[in-house]
């Protein structure tokens, strides 16, 4: 159908969808009057029972850990899809370096700082806002600063399939291995099997921090694989002058 027809049909359809959505949302409890029991139960028991101060991460990695494993594998599958689409281009070096000293020095210092902050966000996931998913993206942005602030060649030392694929597999498989370790000692899959520690410190939460680090490593490596594929397939030919 032509573009004009499509847009007029869209107006009608979207108006109908809007009416249906408003009708559906009007049946929800009022804003601010959350009714469901699970939120209140989790708020009450997560800190005394699992000794984790951050209830959201306790939910993500311990109480609903199976769901997070599924999300991690969605990430893995989407990255595999991108790699299948884009890999196969030439593997060439490109002469591209930042010439301004200020940017190189400042960027280089920023890389160390960003990496440290990323590690802190992952490690303190059960104490303050943070966790594996956020920290993984922050770590990946620290590494991609090598391309942004230094040069393409420095980035290529890290942004390679031979380096990143094992790390990504380690992260994704680590999640499953931790779950299987619980299974091997007679407990259900992904049970928290270490003794809980002191809430509010780094030693808290039993074996859930292992899962936290596995998720952080996997997200970091997945983001870096995405950046590698995009930069290699599309920026290198531009820099080299070919189309």
């Amino acid at each position, binding site marked *: 159908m032509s573009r004009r027809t499509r847009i007029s049909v869209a107006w009608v359809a979207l108006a109908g969808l809007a009416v249906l959505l408003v009708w559906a949302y009007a049946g929800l409890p009022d804003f601010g009057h959350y009714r469901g029991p699970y939120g209140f139960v989790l708020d009450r028991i997560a800190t005394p029972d699992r000794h984790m101060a951050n209830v959201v991460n306790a939910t993500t990695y311990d109480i609903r850990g199976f769901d997070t494993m599924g999300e991690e594998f969605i990430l893995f599958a989407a990255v595999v899809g991108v790699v299948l689409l884009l890999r196969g281009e030439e593997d060439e070096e490109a002469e591209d370096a930042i010439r301004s000293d200020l940017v190189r020095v400042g960027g280089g210092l920023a890389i160390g700082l960003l990496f440290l902050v990323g590690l802190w966000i992952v490690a303190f996931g059960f104490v303050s806002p943070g966790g594996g998913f*956020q920290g993984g993206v922050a770590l990946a942005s620290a590494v991609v600063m090598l391309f942004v602030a230094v040069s393409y060649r420095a980035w290529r030392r890290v942004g390679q399939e031979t380096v990143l694929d094992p790390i990504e597999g380690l992260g994704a498989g680590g999640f499953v291995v931790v779950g299987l370790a619980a299974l091997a000692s007679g407990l259900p899959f992904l049970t928290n099997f270490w003794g809980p520690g002191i809430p509010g410190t780094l030693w808290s939460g039993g074996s859930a921090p292992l899962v936290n680090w596995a998720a952080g490593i996997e997200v970091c490596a997945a983001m870096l694989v995405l950046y590698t594929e995009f930069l290699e397939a599309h920026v290198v030919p*531009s820099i080299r002058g070919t189309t």
Partner: protein
Amino acid sequence: MTLATLVPLQSVAFALVVLGATAIVLTHDLLRLAVVNGFYGLILVLLFVVYGAPDVALSMLVVSTVAYPLLLLVAITRIRKGK
């Protein structure tokens, strides 16, 4: 934050979300789209903080300041260079 300060902040945040979403859809120039998308990410961070969800705000912050602009700019560069 007491309740008295929270309600005006929430209204401001919701108004900005509506404006940001409409602005993204109406922007057709690609470079401007990357910038407006970055702004929309920051507006969502404000909204999530006002909702009392710092973890979600942190997640949206790291994603919309690094990952989205990088991927969009690489795609835009490739589309423009290949003319």
